């Protein structure tokens, strides 16, 4: 066989089911207390610092990290369960999600010890927020085209240039960003990029919000003017960020957040059709549930491979590719079925509002975290075509 894809039927161990109960109970309490409304995904207040601290206090941040950095040394599958329950409940995870999924693991691998000791426990307590500085004006998925310069100076680097589409930069305490430390070489286009830990809210950094078509403000433009970064904030190898940035993408690409972003419209449709649906609605719901079930089986399977220490790069890319297309199509398919919902359905207005928001959200899903085109290139490489 040319491409031996594997998706073993991983089952979540019993400790995960116990944990799932705890997370559901916690979320139910928070919903009852009015911290957030699970039926209202288009709220303005996606950043809720108090919620973040409570999640940290429960031990659900940095779950897989070493205890000496505030982590909990639990399994990747346990973290998976927490992530999917938060996502399905539409919990306000904005403040901690990026740090927990990506920034923390990067620091664990590449930061000097004193920085790990200083920052990682604060992530685990849910106190601080991270942004990721990759895209630049006119670069986007083409990371090689990044131009923002880091110029060597006494004791550190001076940063000049602009990052863009930076989610959460306006609330972030830190950003992990790549900057150009030397030009690419003829032999290696990937050469010359370095990863840095940037402390936000410092001189030389200006954050300009960019509104989205959903009406929300998540994106930002971040302008650096002679911003100083000390030497010990370099993460990993000078000029060698390309490999670092790509090696951990399996974690970013296969998680439950990659197929559940618009899931809420399906739940609300089921509520709207009631217990005794007509044939068309029943078939439509059945097909959608079969899809989400399959996506989840694939995603859990990749989580199991990661837990077993494997590097399922192709499998993870496939999950992201078909997962984001699925969550992009879902609101449109639900909209078709919503035409048959009775006028008297009590949640009709909620469903309509959700659809409005989900349909507006959909276009970004195949762009964030690696565009569909880039992912298909990675899959093609895995198939031996490139």
């Amino acid at each position, binding site marked *: *066989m*040319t*491409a031996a*894809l594997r*998706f*073993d*039927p991983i*089952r*979540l161990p019993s400790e995960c089911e116990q944990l*799932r109960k705890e997370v559901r109970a916690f979320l139910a309490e928070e919903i009852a207390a009015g911290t957030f409304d699970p039926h209202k995904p288009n709220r303005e207040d996606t950043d809720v610092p108090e919620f973040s601290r409570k999640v940290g206090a429960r031990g659900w941040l940095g779950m897989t990290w070493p205890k000496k950095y505030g982590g909990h040394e639990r399994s990747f599958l346990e973290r998976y369960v927490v992530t*999917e*329950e938060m996502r*399905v409940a539409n919990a306000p995870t904005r403040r901690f999600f990026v740090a927990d999924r990506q920034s923390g693991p990067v620091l664990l691998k590449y930061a000097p010890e004193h920085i790990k000791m200083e920052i990682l426990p604060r992530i685990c307590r849910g106190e601080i927020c991270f942004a990721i500085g990759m895209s630049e004006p006119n670069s986007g998925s083409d990371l090689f085209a990044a131009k923002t310069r880091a110029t060597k100076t006494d004791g550190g680097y001076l940063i000049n240039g602009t990052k863009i589409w930076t989610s959460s930069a306006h609330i972030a305490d830190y950003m992990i960003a790549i900057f150009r430390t030397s030009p690419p070489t003829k032999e290696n286009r990937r050469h010359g990029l370095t990863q840095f830990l940037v402390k936000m809210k410092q001189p030389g950094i200006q954050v300009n919000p960019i509104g989205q078509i959903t009406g929300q403000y998540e994106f930002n433009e971040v302008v650096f003017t002679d911003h100083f970064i000390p030497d010990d904030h370099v993460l990993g190898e000078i000029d060698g960020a390309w490999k670092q940035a790509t090696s951990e993408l399996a974690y970013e690409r296969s998680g439950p957040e990659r197929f559940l972003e618009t*899931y809420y419209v*399906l*739940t*609300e449709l*089921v*509520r709207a*059709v*009631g*217990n*005794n*649906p007509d*044939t068309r*609605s*029943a*078939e*439509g*719901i*059945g*097909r959608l*549930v*079969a*899809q*989400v*079930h*399959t*996506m*989840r*089986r*694939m995603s859990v*399977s990749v989580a199991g491979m990661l837990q077993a220490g494997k590097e399922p790069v*192709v*499998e993870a890319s*496939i999950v992201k*590719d*078909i997962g984001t297309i699925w969550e992009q199509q879902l609101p449109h398919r639900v909209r078709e079925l919503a035409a048959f919902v009775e006028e008297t359905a009590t949640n009709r207005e909620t469903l309509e509002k959700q659809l409005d928001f989900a349909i507006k959200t959909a276009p970004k899903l195949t762009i964030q975290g690696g565009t569909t*085109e880039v*992912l*298909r*290139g990675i*899959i*093609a490489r*895995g*198939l*031996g*075509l*490139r």
Partner: protein
Amino acid sequence: MAESENIVAETAEKIFADLADAQTINRDQKGEWKAPLWQALSDAGLPLSWVPENCGGSGASLAEGFSVLSAAGRFAVAVPLAETMLAGWLLAQAKITSPGGEMTVVPASPKDRITVNADGSLSGRARGVPFAKVAKHFAVLASNAKGDFAVALVDGGKCRIETGLNLGGDPSDVVTLDKVQPVTIKPAPTGFDQARLMLMGGVARSLQIAGALESMLDISVRYSNERVAFEKKISKFQAVQHNLARLAGESAAALAAATSAADAIANATSFNDEVFLEAVAAKIRCAEAAEKGGGIAHQVHGAIGFTIEHILHRYSLRALAWRDDFGSESFWAVELGKLVARRGADELWPLVASR
């Protein structure tokens, strides 16, 4: 996968590789490959994988049998292996000993009914029964007026067969039982109903479809690395690469859904809503993958893949045909939708996240 599963699957895989090479089969218009293949499969005990040793079978586990079906799908074999395995499994549910030779199951559609008459004979009509024409015996699931299910072993020669062919060119026949006296008839175990048989058959077909897609991906990738157009291998064109990446996605989804469903059934202690979701979702998703994935495989191959000489149709047409057996994806989607609606909105996620 446990080591013992590998041994059974490896045996099947080796027999298929030796005796069911797609190229050889495609060239042999008279079907002379069938007898030696069936003989080898029978010698290895594979058709009766799911029959306990005390009922004349080889007593393999459900999981081992499912891995044989995956292998059969990868070779898109057109002998009644899956059908005989299912028939043996159904007979074993009622502790009926399986005879040797080819078998199939009746009915093969959730809409067809076979009834047990007061005198113990069987009546009814079943459409789309795979390989009925070549099967010596049928394993029949029938119900009486009270709705109690029974399993019967029936001599195929006593039934009326109207022959037909499915999309892949394999026998798909109408079987009519007109007061046929079975060889043996015994009550089905408590709770065993037609849905159970259909879902078991559906999972078997899901594994076969997933296997066929794996092979379609394999031969499509290989072809794209050989075929030159516009002075380049077509695998170097980004559009072709992206199509193959999508095919890999469909293949992966089918594989994940089918193997998960097989695992769920193999380890089920009861046939609950979670097992139902696994089985039905596999049939729905694999059927969709057969359509989308098969379409891409043909697109990559161009005109050559549309010819009878090429092996692609052996996989693509069978995968499309298997969608219809034991309940199509539309049929099961309605059933799944009803189940989800009955449980209610707040019980959907707990169902999906139950394992």
